[in-house]
């Protein structure tokens, strides 16, 4: 590198080059308006369903026989559920089961079941039992023609003592609700351990 190239002394004076340098100096020193110090609070976090509660009322006595909860307080991901109850019901009885959905990431907790009810024509719950002797029917109806079940209010008839699982599925079926489980997307899919005793 002996023959080192020598600078043309006037090049810093070239007007255009000086302009670019000047712009750089300005942009480097100026506090940029794009820059936010800390993140804004979450404004429009999509609706999160953290909690499902099944409130079983004995239809004969009209007393609450049990409340069974699934709760994942930080939504999907992060920590898993902190409450995941086993459904325990007496044998050979009929229960009216009310289903409650909550978003507990906000205070006070937001009732998502009311939103589902408001869009009842696009939503439907489905229930599947395995091992546990339960049969289920719908107590509520939407305003489709003919009306279809919703599933926020259902009747569960228990059989003999048994153990197994109860699966609760909520399908979002905008415009395609037909009373079957096939169309639409799954919003909820929870399988509770279930004991009939």
């Amino acid at each position: 590198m002996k023959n080192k190239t020598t600078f043309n002394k006037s090049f810093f004076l070239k007007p255009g080059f000086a302009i670019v340098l000047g712009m750089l100096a300005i942009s480097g020193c100026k506090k940029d308006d794009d820059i936010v110090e800390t993140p804004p609070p979450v404004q429009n976090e999509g609706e999160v369903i953290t909690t499902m509660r099944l409130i079983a009322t004995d239809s004969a006595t009209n007393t609450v026989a049990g409340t069974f909860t699934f709760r994942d307080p930080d939504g999907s991901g992060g920590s898993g559920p902190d409450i995941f109850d086993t459904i325990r019901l007496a044998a050979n009885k009929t229960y009216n089961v009310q289903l409650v959905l909550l978003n507990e990431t906000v205070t006070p907790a937001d009732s998502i079941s009311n939103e589902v009810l408001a869009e009842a024509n696009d939503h439907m719950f489905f229930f599947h039992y395995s091992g546990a002797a339960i049969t289920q029917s719908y107590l509520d109806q939407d305003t489709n023609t003919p009306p279809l079940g919703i599933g926020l209010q259902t009747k569960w008839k228990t059989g003999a003592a048994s153990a197994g699982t109860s699966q609760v599925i909520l399908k979002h079926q905008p415009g395609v609700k037909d009373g079957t489980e096939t169309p639409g997307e799954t919003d909820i899919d929870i399988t509770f351990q279930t004991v009939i005793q």
Partner: protein
Amino acid sequence: MFVLRKAIAACACLFVFTAVSAQRTDSTAACRYTCSGTVYDLDSKAPLPLATLLVKEAPEKSVYADEHGHYQLSGLCAGKTYTLVLRHLYCESFSDSITITGTLQRDFYLPHFDHQISEVVVHAHSSEGLATQARQEISGSELQQKSGQSLGEMLSSKSGVTMLQTGSSVSKPVIHGMHSNRILILNNGIRQEGQQWGSEHAPEIDPFIAERITVVKGANAVRYGSDAIAGVVLVEAPDLRDSAGIGGAVQLAGFSNNREGNVSAVIGQNFRKLPALSWRAQGTLKQGGNYRTPNYWLNNSGRRENNFSLTAGYNKENFSLETFYSQFNTSVGIFSGSHIGNLTDLYNAFNSAQPAEQAGFSYTIGRPNQEITHELLKVKSFVRTGKGEYRKGKLQLVYARQYNMRLEYDKHKPLNDSLAALNLPELKYEITTHTTDLTWDHGAVGRFSGSVGMSGMFQQNTYEGRYFIPNYRNKTAGLFWIERMRIDTALTLEAGVRGDYKHLQVFKWENNVVISPVHQFSNISGTLGLVWQVRDHMHVLVNAGSAWRAPGVNELYSDGLHHGAAAIETGDRTLTTEKAYSLITTVNWHNHKNLETEISAYYMLFDGFIYAQPEAEPALTIRGAFPAFQYVQTDATLKGVDANASWRFTKQFTCNVKASLLRARNTGTNDWLQLMPADRIEPGLRWKSDGKNHFRNWYAGTSVQFVNKQWRVPYNSDFVPPPAAYTLVNAEAGCSLFFGKQEIEIGISATNLLNALYRDYMDRFRYYTDATGRNIGLRIKVPFNVSPNSKQN
């Protein structure tokens, strides 16, 4: 009548050169440089055979180009400027000067007599980057034949390059199996900075802007900084017009499958009274509707784009100032059947013969969709440095600001009516990036040429809506030095070193307080390479390089259900730098007549390769159980071969074949790496008219692309097995027509000509749908030129 037959050309052109082309070995060490390249027909962009290159200062060094337009001047002296006069029977002769600072590669475009274009277009290969790395480029007529395609689609025609797709409307380039944060895209010399970590985030670049798109393969951190692990994509706009007058072109491209239309126009002007000043404006409109597979339409798969760019420059020999502004706006519909609630839905979609949501054709884009804006403002200036005509260096300063806004809308609005009425995106990212580069290419100093430079970046990211990655602020600084040394006529060495520092501060809500942890990364990269002209017909490139990248913010901080991917991804805040070392060797051999082959072999070693590892237990959520992935680091190796060969077996027919093989191993778990392109081979046959009469620039070609099944996949990391091997037939044809003096270039192309039913492993929508069916494209280009000197016919 314009493209020559060998015999005619030999008589007409070569009378001077037979006498003087005898090679004389120059004994001085500094006179061992070569300048090689190809001479093209300016109009057809086809190689022009048998043009003569007269070296005015040293007539004994004059040569003529071969049948393919290739030429090589040798024994050129370092630091000297030579005047080249190019002559061809049917072309205007013109002269241009070259300054020798090392081995030069330069292509020339010769205008025809009948075209009455007074200016001469000289196009030199950009000297950007390393000379010892394998590169492939799309330019000239090839670029024109691909117009209307996305950047990912265009590049996937090159061996070793494939694309990662999210359906037909979102595609991004993959080099040697690497994509997103592991390749770097330079848009007009500026690092493209958006949300490039996302596999469903396509590069926000309008390919109509480009005159040339180049893929440089191999680790290349030294020149470009972090992320250039597997390679670099250079999208380069043409130089501003440098001869007085107005010129430009209108391009139209239409496609049958999704009834897509593209209109792009460019106009540029140079002033006769102020020859240093030029400007150019360019714009593109694109609209496409639903795509169709061989059996059904894909609901909500349309796209729209409107882009424009403005450039103005003041260019003198020793000083230049140029400003560039571009805006890219797109709306992309996401096939609605891909929006699933849980794994059961995914399996249902995969197992059904048709998507649950039937659709016909429509241009309407509804939810789910993406709305993206990307802005780039660039100011570039250089001054020549140094005294003496032959020893000039170049000091260049570039500043750029980019702003990228990405809105992602879910399939459904919120249940809550008041929220739904706002119709807000479920996810909104805004990222602003300022970059500055200062580079000094010093002139030739003895046997050396090279450059030093520094670069800095300042970046700020914010989000609104669903959490996937946090807000952050990112500052980087880098310093590099690359030197090239000419050993002798046949051998050039290249070496470079770079240091980088990155400061990342994250802002995130956690347990109702804002945390702002800082991550710092620093790294030294190096490169060493050679260009060896083994024989007249053969040269070898060898490059060993290192590269690095800091873990992406998603890899550090993601936590939750990946939208649409049916997977829970968890980042790891303790991840460290991922380093890669690559060795890539390219052998190019041609017989100066009708055979040419190029084979590239590469080996890449990763230290701390970051990937999402499946967890043993699925994650339980209210939507059901999802496979859980945790970002971890491992060691990995990639090795592969890219090959190209062409054989012109008659004057008009050429057959060619290109092939790519890749083996990617996770050496930590002794398993394959996921999402790697399968082996592929594509033979083709091409006819080109012999250039007589009206058949000038007529061409037709067909190719058969065979893609093997990717059975080299890791255990237990995918929902469904990889799709079967498939074969696609593609074809194209085109010509130039003249209406008076007005030329019109017309091209027709067909992809998946036989309407084959297939799914590609690198398409995320393979879970939900078949790939798109036959697509016929029609392209028309109308160039225009108004030059004050060309009044006569």
